[in-house]
C-alpha cells in the first residue's frame, strides 16, 4: 500500500522544501531594500516542517528505534501524580511552557546588533541539527531509564566523578542564570516608575490569589487566574497614572543599585515563604501570560506583516559592536543559546516530561517538535527587534561609556555609525512608551518590549496604546523572570545544602530554619554579588554576564550531547553517532574558543585577564582609568575581572573533564562487542491497554 505511492507522497514535502529554500534565499540574498518579516517566518516554518518530517523521523526510527509496544515509565509506574500517561498534545503544552522562558526572547534581540541574518540562520540551522536533537535524545534516554535526571544519567553511564562534576557545573550555571535574569529586570525597571509600580503590584496580587486558592476556594486555578490577569492589566493602567503623577512617581523611581538590593532582599524572603503564597500563584500568572503573549505576537506578526528596518548585516560582525563585544564566531553562537540549542532543556527533558509520556514514539513530537516551537518564538523575537528603527535599537542597547548619556550625544554617535536618528526621535519614542528615557536600556527586555508594543498596538484595536503594550511586555518578562529567580533560589538552596551537607551534616536538614537560612543566604549572596557587579559595571554588565551565561548554557548542552553520544556507542548504534557528535563538536568548539578568548584575548574589552592587567598596571601607577572614577572603583574592576576569569576557568574545567570521560568511556564501549548501556529492560504494555 505504502509502496504504491512511494514517491508521490514526498511531492508535497518537496514543495514545502522549495518554498522554504526560496524564502530563505530572499532573506539571505536581497540587499539594499527592506524585506518583509513574513519571509523570515515562512523560511523558518517551512524548514522546521521538512526537518520534522524527515530528520526527526530518521532519528526516531533508525537512531533510537522507538518502539510503540514498549511501555513507558508513565504507564508502568502510573500513580496519577508524578507518573501519568498523558495525551500528547496536552503534554506538548506542558513541555513547551517549561522550556520557553526569557532565553529565546532576549538572545536574538542582543544578536540583532550584527543584523537579522546571522542570528536567523543560526536559529534555523541550530535548532534542526542541535537543539531539537538534544531535547529529543535526552527525552528518549530518560524515558528508557524510568525518568532519570541528567545528572543521574551521566553518573550511571559515564561514572561517579563526571556525575559529580556535572552536578557542580549545574549549580554554577544556575547561579549565572539567576544573576543575568535579575540583571535584565534591573535594567528594565531602573528609573521607570510605571514599570516598577506594576511589577511591585504583582506581589499583593499573587498573595491574594494564593490565599484564595488555599483557603477560600481551594484549588480553583482557572477562575482566580482570570481574576489575577484582570488585576494585572488594571495595575498596568494604574501604573500609567502613577508615572504621570508628580507626587507618586518619585516614590516608585529607583536607581539600578536600589533595585538590586530590593531584588536580593526579595529573593531571600520569597525563597523562605511557603510556595502557595507567592511563588505558585505568580507562576500560574506568568505561564498563562507567556503563552498568551506568544500567541498574540504570532497573530500580530502575521496580520501586520511588518517590514524589517534592521539591515541584514551590520558592520558589527567584525566584533566591534556596542551591545556586546566579540566576533561573529564564536560569540554569535554563544549569544543566541535558547532558540537554537539550550542545555537547560536537557534538565526539563529529563525532569517531568518523561514521566508523563504515554508512548515513546510521541517523544519525537514532544522533544523535537517542542524545541522547533521554541525556536519559532526566538524567530519572532528577532523580528520584533528588527522592526524597530536601528537607531533606536542602538541607542537603547549601547552603554553610556560608549555613546554618552544624553539624547544629543547618543543620537550623534549612533548616527555616525550609519543608523540615522535625531535626538527628537529618541525623545518621541520615550514619550510614546511612557518612559522618561530609552537610553541605556540594555539587556534585551526593553528593546523587545518596544518591538512587541509596536506590533501589538497596530494589530489590536485601541488608540494610543503603545505605552500600555510596552509596559505589558515589560511586566510579562519581569513576571517570569521573578518566578525563575524565586524557584531558582529554592532549587539552588537545596543544591547548596546538599553540597555543604557532605561536610556539615546538620546543614542538610531542609526543615531546619537555620539550615534553610544559611542555604538560601549563600545562594542569594552568590547571584546577588554577580548581579551587583553587573549593575555597577559602567560598561553595562550585560557585556560580561550574557557571554558567561551563553557559555555555561551551551556547555551544558555539550555535556548532554556527549552523554547521548556515549550512550549511542554503548547501545552499539555506532553508525549513527554523527547525529550527536556533529552538534556536540560544534558546541565544544564554540564554547571552548569563546572561553579561551574571554580569558586570554589581549584586548581589555574582550579578555578578562587583559582587563585586570591593564587596570592593575594603572592602579599601581596611581592612575584612574575611565569609566572608573575613584581608586575604589579601580579595585572593583580588577576584582571583578578576576572573578569572571575564575568562573570561565571553572566552566572550561567542567566541560573539558566531561569530554575526557566521554572519550574514555566511549572508546571502551566502542571496542566491546555487546551492548553495555544501562537501559531499563523491555516491558510490553500491560494487557488492560
Amino acid at each position, binding site marked *: 500500500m505504502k509502496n504504491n505511492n512511494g514517491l508521490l507522497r514526498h511531492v508535497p514535502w518537496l514543495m514545502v522544501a522549495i518554498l522554504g529554500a526560496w524564502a530563505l534565499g530572499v532573506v539571505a540574498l536581497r540587499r539594499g531594500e527592506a524585506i518583509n518579516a513574513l519571509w523570515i517566518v515562512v523560511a523558518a516554518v517551512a524548514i522546521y516542517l521538512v526537518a520534522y518530517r524527515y530528520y526527526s523521523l530518521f532519528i526516531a526510527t533508525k537512531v533510537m528505534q522507538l518502539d510503540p509496544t514498549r511501555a513507558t515509565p508513565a504507564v508502568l509506574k502510573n500513580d496519577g501524580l508524578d507518573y501519568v500517561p498523558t495525551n500528547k498534545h496536552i503534554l506538548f503544552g506542558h513541555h513547551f511552557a517549561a522550556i520557553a522562558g526569557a532565553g529565546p526572547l532576549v538572545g536574538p534581540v542582543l544578536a540583532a546588533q550584527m543584523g537579522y541574518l546571522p542570528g536567523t540562520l543560526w536559529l534555523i540551522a541550530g535548532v534542526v541539527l542541535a537543539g531539537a536533537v538534544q531535547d529529543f535524545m535526552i527525552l528518549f534516554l530518560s524515558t528508557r531509564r524510568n525518568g532519570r535526571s541528567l545528572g543521574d544519567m551521566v553518573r550511571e553511564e559515564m561514572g561517579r566523578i563526571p556525575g559529580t562534576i556535572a552536578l557542580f557545573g549545574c549549580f554554577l550555571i544556575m547561579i549565572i542564570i539567576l544573576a543575568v535574569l535579575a540583571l535584565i529586570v534591573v535594567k528594565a525597571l531602573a528609573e521607570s516608575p510605571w514599570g516598577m509600580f506594576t511589577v511591585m503590584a504583582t506581589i499583593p496580587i499573587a498573595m491574594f490569589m494564593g490565599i484564595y486558592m488555599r483557603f477560600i476556594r481551594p484549588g480553583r486555578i482557572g477562575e482566580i487566574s482570570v481574576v489575577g490577569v484582570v488585576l494585572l492589566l488594571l495595575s498596568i493602567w494604574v501604573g500609567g497614572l502613577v508615572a504621570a503623577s508628580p507626587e507618586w512617581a518619585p516614590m516608585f523611581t529607583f536607581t539600578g543599585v536600589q533595585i538590586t538590593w530590593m531584588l536580593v532582599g526579595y529573593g531571600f524572603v520569597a525563597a523562605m515563604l511557603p510556595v502557595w503564597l507567592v511563588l505558585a500563584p505568580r507562576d500560574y500568572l506568568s505561564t*498563562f501570560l507567556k503563552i498568551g503573549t506568544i500567541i498574540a505576537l504570532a497573530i500580530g506578526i502575521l496580520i501586520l506583516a511588518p517590514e524589517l528596518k534592521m539591515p541584514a548585516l551590520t558592520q558589527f560582525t567584525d566584533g566591534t559592536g556596542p551591545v556586546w563585544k566579540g566576533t561573529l564566531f564564536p560569540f554569535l553562537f554563544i549569544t543566541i543559546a535558547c532558540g537554537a540549542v539550550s542545555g537547560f532543556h536537557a534538565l526539563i527533558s529529563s*525532569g517531568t516530561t518523561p514521566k508523563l509520556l504515554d508512548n515513546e514514539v510521541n517523544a519525537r513530537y514532544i522533544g523535537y517538535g517542542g524545541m522547533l516551537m521554541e525556536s519559532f518564538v526566538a524567530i519572532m523575537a528577532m523580528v520584533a527587534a528588527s522592526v524597530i528603527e536601528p537607531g533606536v535599537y542602538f541607542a537603547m542597547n549601547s552603554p553610556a561609556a560608549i555613546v554618552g548619556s544624553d539624547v544629543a550625544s547618543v543620537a550623534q554617535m549612533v548616527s555616525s555609525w550609519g543608523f540615522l536618528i535625531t535626538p527628537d526621535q529618541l525623545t518621541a519614542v520615550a514619550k510614546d512608551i511612557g518612559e522618561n528615557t530609552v537610553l541605556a536600556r540594555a539587556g534585551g527586555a526593553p528593546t523587545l518590549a518596544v518591538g512587541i508594543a509596536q506590533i501589538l498596538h497596530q494589530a489590536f484595536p485601541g488608540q494610543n496604546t503603545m505605552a500600555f503594550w510596552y509596559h505589558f511586555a515589560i511586566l510579562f518578562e519581569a513576571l517570569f523572570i521573578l518566578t525563575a529567580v524565586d524557584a531558582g533560589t*529554592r532549587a539552588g538552596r537545596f*543544591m547548596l545544602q546538599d553540597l555543604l551537607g557532605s561536610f556539615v551534616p546538620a546543614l542538610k536538614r531542609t526543615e531546619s530554619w537555620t539550615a534553610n537560612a544559611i542555604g538560601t543566604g549563600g545562594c542569594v549572596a552568590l547571584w546577588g554579588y554577580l548581579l551587583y557587579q553587573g549593575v555597577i559595571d559602567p560598561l553595562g554588565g550585560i557585556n560580561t554576564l550574557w557571554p558567561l551565561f551563553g557559555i555555561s548554557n551551551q556547555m551544558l548542552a555539550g555535556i548532554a550531547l556527549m552523554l547521548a553520544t556515549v550512550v549511542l556507542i554503548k547501545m552499539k548504534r555506532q553508525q549513527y553517532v554523527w547525529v550527536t557528535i556533529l552538534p556536540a563538536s560544534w558546541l565544544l568548539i564554540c564554547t571552548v574558543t569563546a572561553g579561551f578568548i574571554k580569558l586570554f584575548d589581549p584586548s581589555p574589552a574582550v579578555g578578562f585577564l587583559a582587563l585586570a592587567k591593564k587596570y592593575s598596571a594603572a592602579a599601581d601607577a596611581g592612575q584612574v582609568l575611565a569609566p572608573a572614577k575613584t581608586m575604589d572603583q579601580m579595585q572593583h574592576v580588577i576584582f571583578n575581572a578576576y572573578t569572571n576569569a575564575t568562573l570561565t576557568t571553572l566552566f572550561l574545567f567542567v566541560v573539558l573533564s566531561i569530554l575526557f570521560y566521554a572519550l574514555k568511556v566511549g572508546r571502551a564501549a566502542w571496542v566491546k562487542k555487546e551492548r553495555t548501556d544501562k537501559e531499563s529492560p523491555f516491558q510490553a504494555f500491560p494487557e488492560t491497554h
Partner: protein
Amino acid sequence: MFNDLSRLGKYLGQAARLMVGMPDYDNYVEHMQKTHPDKPVMSYEAFFRERQDARYGGKGGPKCC
C-alpha cells in the same frame, strides 16, 4: 458540534492546568479506584496541595540535574 466544543474545552483546561504542574484529578481518582481500591483517595484540595508542594520542592526539592 457542541460535544466537540466541550471536549476541546476540556482538553484546553487540562493543558492549561498541566502547564502549571497540575495533572488531571479525575484521571487520578479513576486510577486509584481501578488499581488501588484499598487505598484512600485524596480529596481535590489535598491533591492540589500535594501537587503544588511537589512542583516547587516540598521534600528534597527540585534538582537542577
